[in-house]
């Protein structure tokens, strides 16, 4: 009886963990070539501004958005302090932070219409109008 209860408890724990692991994607216009994670990071840090002669336009969600925070921590590997420091230094070097949009829906619409646009969102918001470049889940 006790053994069965423990098995049941462990199974529930595992299933619960699976159900809470949200998935996110980095998406781009359909004309965008495949990009490595290093290139994606460089685009969002404005180190790369053209790829295949197309101007790349990285788009951030607004600064307090939870998905943006996950993107910065898990893809850019930078916390808020480092990013503030980074963009102030980039101002001295002549680079601007990415533009921001208020919703994932707005990003999807923009990415769909504009060559070189690249953004990120929850996997549930993706459809086949955009190209998925990279997928990640909560760590």
């Amino acid at each position: 009886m006790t053994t069965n209860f423990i098995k049941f408890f462990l199974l529930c724990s595992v299933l619960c963990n699976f159900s809470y692991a949200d998935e996110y994607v980095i998406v781009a216009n359909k004309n965008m070539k495949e990009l490595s994670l290093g290139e994606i990071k460089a685009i969002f840090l404005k180190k790369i501004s053209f790829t295949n002669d197309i101007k790349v336009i990285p788009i951030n969600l607004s600064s307090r958005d939870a998905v943006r925070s996950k993107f910065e921590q898990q893809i850019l590997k930078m916390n808020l302090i480092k990013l503030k420091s980074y963009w102030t230094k980039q101002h001295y070097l002549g680079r601007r932070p990415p533009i921001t949009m208020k919703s994932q829906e707005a990003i999807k619409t923009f990415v769909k219409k504009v060559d070189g646009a690249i953004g990120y969102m929850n996997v549930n918001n993706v459809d086949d109008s955009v190209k998925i470049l990279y997928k990640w889940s909560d760590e």
Partner: protein
Amino acid sequence: MKKIITLLLTLFISLSAKESEETPYTLGEGLQVASLPLYLGGYFSLDYKRKPNEEKYEIEDFAILGYGSYEKISYITELEFKKLYVNANKNEERSVEQDTALHVERLYSTYNVNENYDLGVGKYNSPIGYWNLIPVNVLRDTSSIPITSFIIFPQYTTGVNASYNSYTDNDFRIDVMLQKNSDIDPKYNNYEINEHYGIGFTYAKNNFSLKFNAGVFQIVDYYNEDDEFNGKEHDGGDGDGDEDDIDKDFETLTSSKHYYALLSAKYDSDSFQVMGEIGSQRSKDDFITKYAGYVQSVYRFDEKHMAILRAESYDNQVSKIAENMAIVGYTYRPIYPIAIKTEYQFHSISNNDTLLLSFSMMF
């Protein structure tokens, strides 16, 4: 002078007002002029320095930045008043100096060949070591910069700059610097040079980076008015700075090409950073600077508070000065583009211990 500053401030404030109607202005990120490919910003630093026989207040930097990009071409210009106001009291003698000359610190344009290659032309910060890329008080950890960063290599290059960056998971970067002409503003460099050929390799993986630079340059004239070095390089032999000594040094320094090498390493986590650099400079016959190096650790208590500890050492054969230093610093940033810093420098040479306080801002 006052008219120039008033004009610049008026321009900036009026542009700020215009801009605020459209997009919110963020301090430290500049602002766009109308819808033009032109962003304006700048920075300044107010410093206080105290040594056993000297006290100094100064407006150390006041600079205006302008930059932008159109298609694959980007540009940046940085005009600066270096020592706008200096009020010093040395050995009970007070002096006030105002250098109102507007210097060209940077003026260059870059062509983005593709995602991996950039080609630039103009006057730029020599991409050597870690400190020389952002030589602005508000952006660095301490008010002072390590001596390594201004006695080994030319801080500015006027010519061509080419770079390659792999942008893979482990970043690899190559920088090439070429100069075979005069400096755009020869008074604004640690050395007045008419030749500089340099190369740099940078490897970065996660929080770690390693950098190596080497090059050769030809000195036309020799400055080093940087207070952090206390004019020591002007002082030959006995260090009293008399004319004979200066002439002797000048001859030594300008008679042949100077070769340099610098090795830099950095580990940077969220809460702490450890970095170190070691370099050397020599002519064909002998060392100019046998070695100059430092190790620095930074601990970030939180977003606003950080403590810095740095140990430095150098041996300069021309000035005949070999010195060790320990620097303890504390920096408070109420917001990132504003820094209030204090540091105390312990020098192995007597009567050189220095207290530095500064207030600096990027706008």
